[in-house]
């Protein structure tokens, strides 16, 4: 039962949501809006379940001896801080919740991401080798864009930025467009298989 019902539900929802695209009708578009609303609620509930997983995991880690317990405490402190501030004083302008977001969370996330500037450089040094014709083209395209999209490119030659624009707007678009078409077909094929009940990986263990 628990295997058949989801497959049916999935099929009915899928067919309806695809079909409504071609139908001009008040009740149909209303029902369609309602289903979209459900999707949002389901998504948020799935997120909350994930968050509960994280919290229970950290609590488990605290009960274990070793340095991990201190880190788990820091993580739980972070969660508790945001929850208390957010529900206690609100999330409007000037609230402590937004203060922590602005002064701690956002800059830390930015910093972690900026670490990639360093990784990119070391990957470029060791990995960008023109071993054969294809990789030579790869290296060349990267160098042209690297220099052509900043002021230094204009100093080297006014043709550099123009070349970059052409490379970006013609050959790069052609390749990206073909990849888009290919992945679009792949995703559509998967969606069709999901609705037809042939692809059930999403049902998790035992679904297939």
């Amino acid at each position, binding site marked *: 039962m628990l295997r058949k019902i989801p497959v049916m539900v999935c099929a009915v929802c899928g067919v309806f949501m695809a079909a409504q695209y071609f139908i001009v009708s008040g009740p149909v578009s209303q029902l369609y809006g309602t289903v979209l609303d459900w999707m949002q609620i389901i998504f948020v509930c799935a*997120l909350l379940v994930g968050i509960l997983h994280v919290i229970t995991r950290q609590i488990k880690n605290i009960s274990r001896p070793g340095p991990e317990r201190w880190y788990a405490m820091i993580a739980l402190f972070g969660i508790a801080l945001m929850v208390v501030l957010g529900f206690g004083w609100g999330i409007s302008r000037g609230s402590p919740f937004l203060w922590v977001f602005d002064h701690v969370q956002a800059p830390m996330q930015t910093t972690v991401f900026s670490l990639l500037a360093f990784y990119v450089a070391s990957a470029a040094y*060791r990995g960008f080798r023109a071993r054969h014709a294809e990789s030579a083209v790869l290296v060349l395209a990267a160098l042209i864009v690297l220099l052509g999209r*900043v002021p230094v490119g204009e100093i080297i030659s006014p043709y550099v930025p123009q070349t970059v624009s052409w490379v970006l707007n013609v050959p790069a678009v052609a390749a990206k467009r073909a990849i888009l078409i290919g992945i679009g077909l792949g995703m559509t094929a998967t969606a069709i298989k999901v609705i037809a009940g042939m692809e059930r990986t999403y049902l998790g263990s035992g679904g297939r």
Partner: protein
Amino acid sequence: MKLDRRIIFMIVALAVVVPLLFPLGLPVAVTDETRAVYERLERLEQGSVVMLSFDHEASSLPEVRPLAEAILNHCFRRNIRVVGLALFAEGAAVGYDILHDLAARHDKQYGHDYAYLGYRPQYTAAILGMGESIREVFPTDYDDTPYDDIPLLREIRNYGDIGLVVSVADGSLPTYWVEYAQARYGQEIIAALTAVMVTAYAPYVDAGQISGVLGGLKGAAEYEILLGRHAAGKRGMDAQSLAHLSIAVMIVIGNVVAFGLRRKNETTEAGGHSS
């Protein structure tokens, strides 16, 4: 030649820090792509509504903030009204701050000149839902004021009342705007993107599905020049140039070294494979 990664890290850090301390003042030229976005906003009528969507995480703030500020400076200066929203949770707080800051700078009044709807998850559903009714998707604004209590919002039903959507994004969100708002409701879209995303959207621009792309810190600096403002991103451009140059030089050195090694191997063991 095996180089300690940390030496490479140091070179990159210096390439950024030195020009910040001692600016070179390299000239910034405006590209056609940026000019196209500027001119599109110039063509909007006074009083029309731009929907600005903060579709990014907090981690890309240094790139995203100048982009959003450039667009908002332009809108507010031309008396174009702005409705803000976020389709990523972290964009919600960022957008809230930026919109209120810029509005204060231009003496704009909340509820009349601009409004902030807040965050909705599951972007497919949110974007499609707003095509039918924005009120249904956002019953209240970010501060819990009911939709109909805000004069600006009372005039707006769905995309039919929105002149332009600007998606400020660091990921694939503009794709969803194209697939669901543009393809389905014919809504015009502009994307203000982190540089990393620019090539991914070129096909959509070429096909006319996106009306323009403003890309990265450089795009923001160019836009501020078009607005005739003191270019905030200009100093950053020196650092950007030097960092790019140093990485380019490292790619070249890496290749020269590899080529040299390969030659040496070939002379010692004839026909031997490298790499």
